[in-house]
């Protein structure tokens, strides 16, 4: 007789204390798993990149097969956590817009000039559909080239930025 499915057992998380993260000689992320196997290069993937960037990190091997899930990177040892967080920061580049200097355009195409936590930036959108409005005033933007930007809570921007943004969302 097979055991009935217990849904909480289905997602197998790696024991955070037994996962060792390092770099190999090719500057690739290397992971030692609880079973003692060592894998490189390892690609960390956020399973909830927008809502839970630090939780449920999937580790993929070179063939994109999942090696395992890390429930929360904060459960890792400090050194491992730092390395993993650094790699994630590289893999997911989404500057946060803090101010919109100008936003102009017509025919649905808009040119934006904005300040982000990575410096000021120009970018173009091809249509309003590239702006996603989430709850809590969160706004996600994907530009013409595929770059991503985020506004954490647009209600907290300065009035001019809000006025500019509200013409688009």
């Amino acid at each position, binding site marked *: 007789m097979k055991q009935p499915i217990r849904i909480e057992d289905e997602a197998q998380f790696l024991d955070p204390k037994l996962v060792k993260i390092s770099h190999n000689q090719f*500057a690739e992320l290397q992971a030692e798993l609880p079973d003692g196997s060592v894998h490189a290069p390892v690609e960390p993937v956020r399973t909830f990149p927008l809502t839970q960037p630090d939780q449920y990190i999937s580790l993929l091997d070179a063939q994109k097969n999942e090696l395992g899930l890390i429930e929360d990177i904060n459960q890792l040892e400090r050194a491992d956590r730092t390395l993993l967080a650094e790699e994630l920061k590289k893999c997911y*580049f989404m500057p946060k817009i803090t101010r919109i200097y100008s936003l102009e355009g017509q025919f649905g195409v808009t040119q934006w000039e904005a300040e982000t936590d990575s410096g*000021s930036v120009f970018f*173009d959108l091809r*249509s309003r559909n590239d702006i996603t409005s989430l709850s809590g005033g969160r706004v996600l933007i994907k530009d013409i080239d595929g*770059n991503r930007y985020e506004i954490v809570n647009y209600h907290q921007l300065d009035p001019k930025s809000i006025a500019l943004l509200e013409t688009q969302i």
Partner: protein
Amino acid sequence: MHSGGFSRRDMHRMARSTGRRSNARRPDAEMTILEEVPAALQRQLESVLEEKEDIKIAISTDLQFDGSYGKDWVLATEKRLLAFNQNGVPAPEVQNIALEAIDEIEIRELYGNNFMKVRTSEGAVEVARYSKRLAPKFAEATPEIETLIDKVKPEDAEKSKRHRKFVDPGKKKIRCETCGRPIPRWSDVCPNCVEKGKLLVRLLKYAIPFWKVSVPALLIMLVIRLVGVYPPILSKNLVDDILVPATMAMTGGQPVDPGAFGQLLTIVFMMVGAHVFTAVFSAVRGYMMTWVGQRITLTLRNDAFQHMSVLSLDFYQQRETGNLMSRITQDVGRLRDFIAEGLQDIIGDSMALVYMCIIMFVINWQLALWVLLPIPLIVLFSFYFGHKMHKVFHVLWRRYAGISTILASTIPGIRVVKAFTREKYEVDRFEEQTHQVFEGEMNAAKLWTLYQPIMTFLTYIGTVLIWLVGGRQILNGELTLGEIMLFMTYMTQFLQPVRTLAQMNRRFLRAATSAERVFEILDTPPSVASRKDAVDLPNMRGQVEFRDVFFSYDNEKNAINGISFTTKPGEMIGLVGHSGAGKSTLINLVTRFYDPNEGDILIDGHDSRDIELRSLRGQIGVVLQEPFLFEGTVADNIGYGKPDATRQEIIAAAKAANAHDFIIKFPDGYDTTVGERGARVSGGERQRISIARAILKNPRILILDEATSSVDTETESRIQEALGRLIQGRTVFAIAHRLSTLKHANRLVVLKEGTIDEIGTHEELIAKGGTYANLCEKQTELSKIRAW
């Protein structure tokens, strides 16, 4: 952070102050892979480079390694690769890698940014981080750097072959080639670079054949407008020549001129005449122009659809169906409005204004100037208001679209909604959306309610001015009562044409973009077309040879990555592989829905590009996973590939396809209408109709794309039987996930990431114990489970 030179923002400021901002950011200017190296970097280079060492490649990034925006550099000479990273303070950190040491250059494509990484035998370093905007530049530079490496490491030349990139001319543009601005997603043409004048000329060409109607219509319009300004003059005469003298006479105690009533009657008749004339000829003109407009629509629409049917699949692949449909329906309609109505309106309204101005200036130029005074205000206001209104309505329109979206997902999904008892969730979602519509409507209402009083007020200013200035002139004896009445009337008649003309700009722009969208269809050459010297191949034997074929849909990833094999005539080839392995792509190439980027496909020894398309496709039959039935009868659908098929042939084909039995059970038999997408016929039945269609066409090459995957086992065996008969004596390419479907196949081609992993007969591949054997084993296990 910005240790060296200007920050990015400073540069933006400078670019802005020195002229048009777009110049500074024109992407094609950035696309060279030998950029000018700044002086500071040049000096540093001198200390690194040897004599006679030239910089071959110099590309800058737009990101630094810490994730802030900034410029780093990657340079390559014939000896080394250099990376300058601003993160080293005060001087940039320099990485100096000898080309001989480089094993591989890797591009890591990540979320929102990319990395360029250099791998040597000892280790690896990241040399550049850049945003997606620069991805094309780095993609172009990478093979160039590899070429430099190949020169110092000739033994590795083979290796870099897999990095080749194709430039596909059919690739959809995202930025305008002329001005560098983004092209709106719905448009495909740059609205900024649309040459409006040229477009207008081209549009008018469609009107020219109908000049015998449209020119008289225009003349009628000019006359109507002229007559239209006449009644106020009549009123003026009535007042000044008859009524006022009569009143004066009476107040002076003298008898009224006895002929006055006759004059009054004449004028009244003339007024009635003018109105009747205008009404009759407006109706005639309206009918004439509708005819012209509809004729233009007819021609344009048919031209566009005719050309669209010629265009290759990639054209359809790159565009949304809705987008293309709206071009044929809405855009063409908009053009009709513009040619038939817009242009004549503009001419007519301008003329009416000119007529009125002339009359007013002749009668009293000072008062005319006063009357015209509020006009610019009215124009400005209409213009501004139109703009605002457009914005508000656009938002509102989007919110209404949101309602449709919710309805479109919940109505067909109502079973799921109910099964998971999510009615309340859906209702809440709907209510939120309707609430937004409510708010949008109220915003629009706010504007409208403002508009009316302001417009009235602006007009009223004109009236008041006439009373004030004209009244004073009357007191001074410079103006008559009839004249002041004429001005009053003209003041009101002025408004409508002025408003129309104020909106003209947008009307014109819209028409221009619509025209461009329609003309884009007409101007796109099919990427797959018969060559001029293409030959007919009437009796194809069905030998297909792939010769080192490469193909990419998006020119980023190769869907077919070097495939070579030959089929014998009459051979059945089973294509096996994971989804995305390139099975369907291979078939798309055989049918010439696409042409390979590199390599050749030969049919009976002829390059497929040299064969007349009609002749080629006329001998290829296709049975797809989701067979597409057109609106029409069952018989129409079976005979689709052979329009001259007799009833007898259709029945024979249906019998061969095991379709006859169920068709005659329909009350209407072969005359049963199958709805759009064949909704009234089940999946297996549809499949058998499409097999009958293929049988009737009697193709030399047959393509079965997952023909049996969407039906139950019982139906599958019937279809299998039908297929077994169909494949006799033809070259067959069959894709199937269920390997049992491929039991008739002479050979199996196992594809993996666009290349041939294994090729051979079922027995050979099983004996080999590779991918195929593995797959077979799994499926056998699966079928056991199913049997159990």
